[in-house]
């Protein structure tokens, strides 16, 4: 029952929870401030070497300098696009392959050991080969990002497919459903949570793929900035790129989480 006039105990309980939540947020912000402050101070006092660890004020200056030169947005944009294409195509192609494997138990059984091997293989090792195959540019980066997420997607989506309650499949069979109808009415909707949760994993994996890809071939992008900054001993630039990376990665993850909570009740 919903009580319209909450009791005194209930109000106290609510305010206790709220106080706790405020405290948690405060502590989180405080940690960030303390971390940045001690970084700045120790660097200024030369307790740590500002050349090696950079320092917040220099990172901010680099940020504005690069913004004025107009390259930073471009680099960020390039990396974002590569990542988004990487994880969306990884999820779609992986799901399609999982569907084929689900439709044919025979193909599934035949390919099983190959999937296991491919899953265990560090896909980054394929990087140099891929560059030879598709050329020294963006396609190579996207394909590296895709190969990293593809096998994981196939395996986890297929697990989701096989997780479907046998009785549900039996039920639609008594309705006369064929294999494609079973897929459409039972297996796919039932596995939607599994597919979306792979999307979440794939966001993270695609970032790894894209940055490594950019390390290997890029002429632009945040990964390129990191390598370039390292080569010219501009650690401010490297640190800035890493900070931008973590902020964007967090935002993307938050967007996928939003989608997840929208579709999964």
């Amino acid at each position, binding site marked *: 029952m919903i009580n319209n006039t909450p009791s005194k105990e209930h109000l106290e309980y609510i305010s206790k929870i709220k106080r706790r939540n405020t405290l948690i947020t405060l502590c989180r912000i405080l940690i960030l401030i303390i971390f940045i402050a001690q970084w700045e101070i120790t660097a200024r006092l030369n307790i740590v070497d500002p050349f090696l660890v950079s320092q917040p004020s220099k990172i901010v200056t680099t940020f504005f300098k690069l913004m004025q030169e107009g390259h930073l947005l471009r680099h960020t944009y390039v990396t974002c696009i590569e990542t988004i294409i990487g994880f969306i195509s990884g999820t779609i192609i992986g799901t399609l392959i999982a569907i084929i494997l689900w439709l044919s138990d025979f193909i599934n059984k035949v390919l099983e050991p190959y999937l296991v091997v491919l899953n265990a293989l560090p896909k980054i090792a394929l990087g140099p080969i891929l560059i030879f195959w598709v050329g020294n540019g963006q396609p190579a980066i996207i394909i590296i990002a895709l190969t990293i997420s593809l096998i994981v997607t196939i395996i986890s989506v297929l697990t989701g497919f096989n997780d479907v*309650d046998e009785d549900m499949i039996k*039920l639609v069979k*008594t*309705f006369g459903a064929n294999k494609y109808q079973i897929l459409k009415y039972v297996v796919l909707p039932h596995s939607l949570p599994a597919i979306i949760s792979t999307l979440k994993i794939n966001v993270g994996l695609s970032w790894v793929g894209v940055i490594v890809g950019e390390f290997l071939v890029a002429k632009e992008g945040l990964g390129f900035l990191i390598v370039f900054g390292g080569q010219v001993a501009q650690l401010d630039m490297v640190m800035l790129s890493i900070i931008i990376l973590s902020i964007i990665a967090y935002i993307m993850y938050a967007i996928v989480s939003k989608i997840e909570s929208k579709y999964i009740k």
Partner: protein
Amino acid sequence: MGKLTLCNVSMTYHTLHTETKTLDDISIKVDEGEFVVLVGPSGCGKSTLLSIIAGLITPTSGSVYLDNKIISYPCNKIGYMFQKDTLFEWRSIYKNITLGLEIRRELTKDNIDFANNLIEKYGLSSFKNYYPSQLSGGMRQRVALIRTLVLNPEILLLDEPFSALDYHTRLLVSDEIYKIIKAEGKTTLMVTHDIAEAISLADRIIVLSSRPAKIKKEFNINLSIENRTPLTSRNAPEFKDYFNLIWKELDKYDK
């Protein structure tokens, strides 16, 4: 011959290591409008029998007749209800109920009207747009029955449809579902291992042995009670006699 007839049905499962005979020469006849209950120890192959009738598996030997003709699959005259309600959580109650029509591509105006009538008649109108997770266990099982009835089957197969419910709900839901089945005049074959439940519902009880299942005995259930329902049946004077008879039958073959 009856509405539904099983002739010498046997079933053997094969694995690499062994073969298991689950059904041994089962012959059953169910008359039009009759409520027949199969009782047997757990794992004796009762569900296998229903799956064979529904055409989900092919028996090793023997055949199934509907209206004196060998049944051909997929057969849209048979409705199947499971132990779990197997409602689709991502579909509304209405969408769950019309799932069979959608799959058979029979969403005609007549069929939709028929579905809406059943929904109305059995008190589900106000829940049409709810999702399964918002309903109680008993209510969900009622939705599952209506989902089956919407396809207007001539034979209903019930596979322990109440065993996932708690005892109290179970009595109420079996009462309710019995009344709906009788009102719709369906021929029913149910499987259970609950003797009391079987007596309270059945016109006739067939006792199966443990694996491989054979027919051991048949009991016609005649209760001296007016306006029989599963709940009132339990008060009939003959109830405990039948219980003891069937209990002894089952007890013998468990050893």
